[in-house]
C-alpha cells in the first residue's frame, strides 16, 4: 500500500492542528451509556425474574430450554440482520424456512437420501433468494413489499405442497444430528451460535461487512465510491435465504416434523431482535451482538412472564411492544447523540473562536449558485 505525502495545506498559528479534545468523564458516560443501556436490561431480566420466581427462572432447565427454543429464531434473526445491514429487509425468511423444511421432508418421503433431501431444501432457498434479488435489485422494487409478497406466496406454496398436513417424513439421521447433545445443548443451538460467530467475523473483520454498512447508510455514495452495490445486495438476499433454508432443515430435524402453517409464528421475533439490536453496542447499526442481545432479551422476558403465570398471548404482545419500544429507543439515542453534537460544536467554537457553518447546508447541484461574491 502506498502512502501519499500530503503536507498540511497551509499552517499558521490560527490553523495549527488542534489536539483531540479532552473527553471528560461525563462525556465518556454519555458515549457509553446509550450503547450498553439495552444490553444491561438482560442481566436485569435475570435479577427481576430471578427474584420473582426464584425456584423456576434461575434454573439450568429454564435457561437450557429457552436457549433451545431460541435456536431457530436466532438463525432467522441472523438472516434478517444480513439484509438489513445492507439497507434492505427480507421478510420472507420465515416462509423460506418452512418451505425448505417441508421440501426436505417430502423429498425424503419420495426416497431421496438425507443429503439429497437437504440439498433440495437448500436449493429451494437459493432459488427464493435469487427471485428476491431479481425483483428488488434488478427490477428495483421495494424490498419490504416484495419479500412480504414472497413470504405470503411461500406460505401458500407450502400449504399446497403438503396438503396442509404436518410433514412427518423427516429423515431419521437428520433428526439424530440436530438433537445430538454437545455439552448439554443440542447441535442446533451450537450451529446457530456458529452462524452468528461467522457473521460477526464477516461484519466486523472483513471489508464486506463495512461495505454493507456503507451501502445501507448511503447507497448512492457507495456506488460512486466504487462499491459493487448491486452485487453486494444480491449476495445478502441469497446468503440470507440460504441461512433460512438451513434453518428450515434444522427445524425439521429438531422437531421431527414441519407444520406448514407455522411460518407466521416465526415472522416477527427475528425482525424485532434485529431492530432491538441497533440500540445495542453499535448504535444505529445492524450488528450481530446487538441482534443476539435483542433476541435473548425478548426470549427471557417472555419466559419470565410465562413463569409468572401469563399464558401464550404474552408472546405476541411482548414481541410487538418490544419492536415499537426498540424503535423508540433508537430515536431517543439519536436525539441524545444530537445533543452531543451541539456540545461538541460548542467546544470546537470555543477553542477556535470560529463560527460553525450554520447556513452552509449542502444544496443540490441544480440550485448551485455561487455564494461567493465576485470581484
Amino acid at each position, binding site marked *: 500500500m502506498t502512502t501519499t505525502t500530503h503536507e498540511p495545506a497551509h499552517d499558521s498559528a490560527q490553523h495549527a492542528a488542534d489536539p483531540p479534545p479532552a473527553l471528560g468523564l461525563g462525556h465518556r458516560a454519555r458515549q457509553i451509556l446509550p450503547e450498553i443501556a439495552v444490553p444491561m436490561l438482560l442481566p436485569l431480566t435475570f435479577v427481576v425474574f430471578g427474584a420473582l420466581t426464584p425456584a423456576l427462572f434461575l434454573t439450568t432447565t429454564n435457561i437450557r430450554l429457552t436457549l433451545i427454543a431460541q435456536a431457530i429464531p436466532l438463525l432467522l434473526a441472523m438472516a434478517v440482520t444480513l439484509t438489513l445491514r445492507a439497507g434492505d429487509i427480507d421478510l420472507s425468511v420465515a416462509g423460506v424456512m418452512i418451505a425448505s423444511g417441508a421440501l426436505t421432508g417430502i423429498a425424503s418421503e419420495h426416497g431421496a437420501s438425507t443429503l439429497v433431501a437437504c440439498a433440495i431444501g437448500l436449493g429451494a432457498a437459493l432459488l427464493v433468494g435469487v427471485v428476491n434479488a431479481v425483483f428488488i435489485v434488478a427490477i428495483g422494487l421495494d424490498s419490504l413489499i416484495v419479500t412480504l409478497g414472497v413470504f405470503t406466496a411461500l406460505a401458500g406454496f407450502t400449504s399446497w405442497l403438503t396438503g396442509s398436513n404436518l410433514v412427518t417424513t423427516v429423515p431419521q439421521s437428520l433428526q439424530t444430528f440436530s438433537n445430538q447433545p454437545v455439552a448439554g445443548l443440542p447441535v442446533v443451538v451450537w450451529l446457530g451460535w456458529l452462524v452468528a460467530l461467522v457473521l460477526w467475523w464477516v461484519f466486523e*473483520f472483513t471489508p464486506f461487512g463495512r461495505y454493507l454498512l456503507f451501502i445501507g447508510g448511503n447507497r448512492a455514495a457507495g456506488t460512486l465510491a466504487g462499491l459493487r452495490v448491486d452485487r453486494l445486495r444480491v449476495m445478502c438476499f441469497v446468503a440470507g435465504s440460504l441461512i433460512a433454508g438451513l434453518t428450515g432443515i434444522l427445524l425439521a430435524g429438531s422437531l421431527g416434523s414441519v407444520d406448514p402453517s407455522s411460518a407466521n409464528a416465526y415472522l416477527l421475533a427475528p425482525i424485532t431482535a434485529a431492530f432491538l439490536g441497533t440500540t445495542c453496542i453499535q448504535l444505529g447499526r445492524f450488528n450481530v451482538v446487538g441482534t443476539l442481545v435483542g433476541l435473548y432479551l425478548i426470549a427471557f422476558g417472555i419466559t419470565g412472564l410465562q413463569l409468572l403465570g401469563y399464558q401464550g398471548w404474552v408472546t405476541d404482545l411482548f414481541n410487538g411492544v418490544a419492536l415499537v419500544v426498540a424503535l423508540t429507543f433508537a430515536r431517543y439515542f439519536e436525539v441524545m447523540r444530537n445533543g452531543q453534537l451541539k456540545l461538541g460544536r460548542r467546544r470546537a467554537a470555543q477553542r477556535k473562536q470560529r463560527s460553525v457553518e*450554520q447556513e452552509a*447546508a449542502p444544496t443540490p447541484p441544480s440550485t*448551485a449558485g455561487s455564494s*461567493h461574491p465576485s470581484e
Partner: protein
Amino acid sequence: MSQPTGQGLSLRNMSKSFGSVPVLKEIDLDLLPGEVHGLVGENGSGKSTLVKIIGGLHSPDPGAHLSLWGRELSFPLTQPQSHGIAIIHQDLALEDTMTVAENVGISSGYGTATFGAYRKRREQRAAAALIEELGLRMSPTAIVATLPPAERSMVAIMRALRLQRLSGASQCLLILDEPTAALTQEESQRLLTMVRGLAAAGAAVLFIGHRLHEVMSVCDRLSVLRSGRLVSTLDTSQTTDAEVVELMLGYELGEFYPERHTPSTSEVALSVRDLSATSVSGVSFEVHRGEILGITGLAGMGQDELPYLVYGSAKRSAGEVVVGEREIANDVLAAQAAGVALVPGNRQRDAVWMEGSAQENLTIPFLSSFHSGGMLRKRRERTFSADQLRRFGVRPHLPGQEMRRFSGGNQQKIVLARWLHTEPDVLLLHEPTQGVDAGAKKELFHLIREAADRGTGVVIFSSDIEEVVNMCHRVIVLRHGVVSAILGQHQLTEQRIISESQGQRAADSAVRTPGRLEESS
C-alpha cells in the same frame, strides 16, 4: 458606526445563538429610508439568520433591540408585514400558471374571507395601481410564466407591497435575499434599476447579494458580515471590491488562491471526445497532467451532468472518454480502474455516509488494503486515518467521529483525502467548495493545487466563476450543453466568462475550437 436615526431600521446589540453556537454577535446596523444597503458575507457568516430575525422566524438572544420607523419592536416580531417588512427570497414562490393579479393578491387572501367572493376586477385594479406606481410595464392579466425574470421578481415584490398595504403599513422595508442569483447579467441589471426606483420612492432596501460588483453598483452603503460579526459598514463610493473581499474573508485575496504553476508536461491525462447525453452534446476536451481545467456555465447548461458522464455513473448517449491510452466504458468501476476519481457536488447525497465515522468514509474505496491475514487490520486503519486527517487539516482529526458532526468544509476535506490517497490520474471535482466556509475553501484550493502539481489532471466543474478564474489554467464555458468557448489563462476574467456563458461574444471564433488546447503562459 453611524448614529441611530430613528427613521429606518435600527438594530442594536443583536446576537443569536443556536444552542450554544453563536451565529450572530452584537450586530449594530442602521438602514435609512431611501437607501439601498448591501449585506455581504461568506456562507455561514450569519446573513440568513439576520434576515430570519427581521422576518420574525427567530428571536435574537436577550439584550437585542430593533426599532423600525422610530418605534421599538419586541421579539419575536409578529406579523412583520404590518410593520412594512417585506422579504423576497431567491425562490419567489410564484404560481407560474396564474396571472399577475392573482399572484399579487394571494398572500393577502385577495382581501376577502376564505369562502368569500373573489373580486376579480378589484384585484386587477389593485395590481394595476401597483404596476403604475412602480413604473413597470406589464398587464395585470398576464400569465406570470410569460414574464421576463426581472419582472417576475417585481411581481413578488408587488405581492409583498400589497400585503403591507392591507396590513396598514405606510412605509416599506424591503429585504432582497440574493434576488439576482438565478438571473442573467442583463436581467439582474434591470431588476436592480427597479429596486433603485423603489428606494427613490422612500423604501429602505436591504440587498443581500452574492455578486459583489452588483452590490457595489446598486447600493449606497454596504455592511460586511464575517463569522457572525458585522465587521464594517462602508460607503460604496469610498471603497473597492478588493477591500470588501478582504473584509469578508479576513485575509487578502491574493493569499486565498494558491499560485498557479505551469504544468511541466503536455502529456494528456484525460480526453473526452464528442460526449453527448441529455444535457450535453458533442463536448470534447483534453486535460493534461498537472493541469487544472475549469468547466463552467450558467445553471442547467450541462456542467452539472458532465462529471458524472465522464466518471461513468450517468448514461452517455454518444462519445468516448479516454484516459491515458485506453477508452473507458460507461461504468464507475472502469473509470476508477483507469485512475479517475470524482468528488461529487452533492456531498450529502452522493459522497458520504453521514452516520458513518470519518475513518469509514475515508477508507471505503481502498478498505481491502487493510485486509490481511484474513482480517481487517482496524488498528492500522485507524492510525492511517488519524494520520490522513491531520495531513489534510481536518478539524477535529478524530477518525472515530461521526461524519455529520464535521463541518461541511471538513467533510469535503475527508472526501478529497479519500480520493487523493488513490493517487488518481484524473480528478473530477464537481462544485468542490459548495457549502464550505472561507477558511476550509482556501485549504481545499491548496490541496487541489498540490494534487495537480503531483501530475494529476484536475477538472473543476463549477458555477463559481471566481473560483475557476483563479484556480484554472484553462476554462471551458458551456452554453446549452455545447462548448461555447475555451479560454486560456491570459483570457481568464470573470467578465469574459459571464459574457461567454450568456453568448454575448458569439463571433470570437479564435477560442471556439473545441478540444484544442489554448497554451497557457
